[in-house]
């Protein structure tokens, strides 16, 4: 039985990890900037990257539906296994909900999302200031939650690697040298 993730799953995981760290950092950084052409540019980039992340998570879910991830080690206590699954479920839910909330927020604020300045994403909501402000709070809160869940995810992976000394982290790492 294979103990590793497929190369596609590994590639998608790390590609999204980089994208998500970039999006989070950019998102928290740009909101406090004074209005400038630079700020408008960063907002556009953030929105383009957000749409990209949303599409990637759909690809990832489709891949995962056809390729079951390797099981958790049997040495893991049942409550911890449950926590791991719940954590992954939360990550996927947030990876879907956050770009959606960002898109709806942009719609309500009257700033349409046009992917890479080329492909317009339809506005689902009409311009509405109160709703826009509410969705901004939702987008922000979901991201704070996301950052917390990611911290737990990274912490758990490091605990498995350095304390439990199992293969949970290494099976998600790109393979080095000869395949075993």
């Amino acid at each position, binding site marked *: 039985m294979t103990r590793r993730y497929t190369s596609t799953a590994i590639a998608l995981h790390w590609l999204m990890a980089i994208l998500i760290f970039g999006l989070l950092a950019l998102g928290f950084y740009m909101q406090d900037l004074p209005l400038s052409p630079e700020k408008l540019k960063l907002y556009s980039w953030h929105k383009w990257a957000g749409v990209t992340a949303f599409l990637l998570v759909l690809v990832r879910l489709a891949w995962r539906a056809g390729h079951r991830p390797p099981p958790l080690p049997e040495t893991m206590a049942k409550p911890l296994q449950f926590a791991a699954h719940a954590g992954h479920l939360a990550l996927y839910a947030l990876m879907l909900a956050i770009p959606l909330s960002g898109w709806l927020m942009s719609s309500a604020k009257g700033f349409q*999302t046009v992917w890479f300045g080329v492909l317009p994403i339809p506005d689902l909501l009409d311009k509405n200031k109160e709703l826009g402000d509410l969705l901004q709070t939702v987008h922000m809160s979901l991201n704070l939650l996301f950052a917390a869940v990611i911290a737990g995810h990274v912490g758990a992976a490091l605990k498995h690697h350095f304390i439990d000394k199992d293969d949970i982290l290494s099976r998600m790492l790109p393979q080095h040298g000869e395949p075993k």
Partner: protein
Amino acid sequence: MKRLALTIALALSGTISAQAVEYSQVQPERSSVAFVYQQMGVSVDGRFRKFASQLSFDPARPTAGKAVFDVDLGSVDTGAAEGDEEVAGKQWFNTKAFPTARFVSGTVKPLGGNRYEIAGQLSIKGKTQAVVVPATFTAQGNSGVFEGAFTIRRADFAIGEGSWAKFDIVANDVQIKFRITATGK
């Protein structure tokens, strides 16, 4: 009976001569001044909440029509509070020094049907440019509605200077859309 006939006759003549009404009382709550521009390829719109105008237009004598339009630039609604603050500033409208934009009509040219072309002078931020404004006029009961749109280049009026002067983020072309409802005297 005679009186009734007279009333009907007057009422009828009223509808027939409705064309001769001179529309001059602008109804601000049924009027709007909005704008559309491109921001990194994305259409963004906004509006002005306050404007005032003196108008006289008789569809029977369109070329005698006149309009002076003042837009309170500080009443801008860009869709975001920080945007409203920014465009009131020195680099954009500089509302402290130039609080209003003014349009003064010149020649009115009928284009057939309910379409007209109004030449005029538009002054914003101390700069005046000749503009030609296409508009339609539609009588709706007691009131008349003027509707139209024209495009200006913000650089012609030094709107958006300094770091905003380039057009890569905020385009040069800005479309002004208006809908003015006026009633007869």
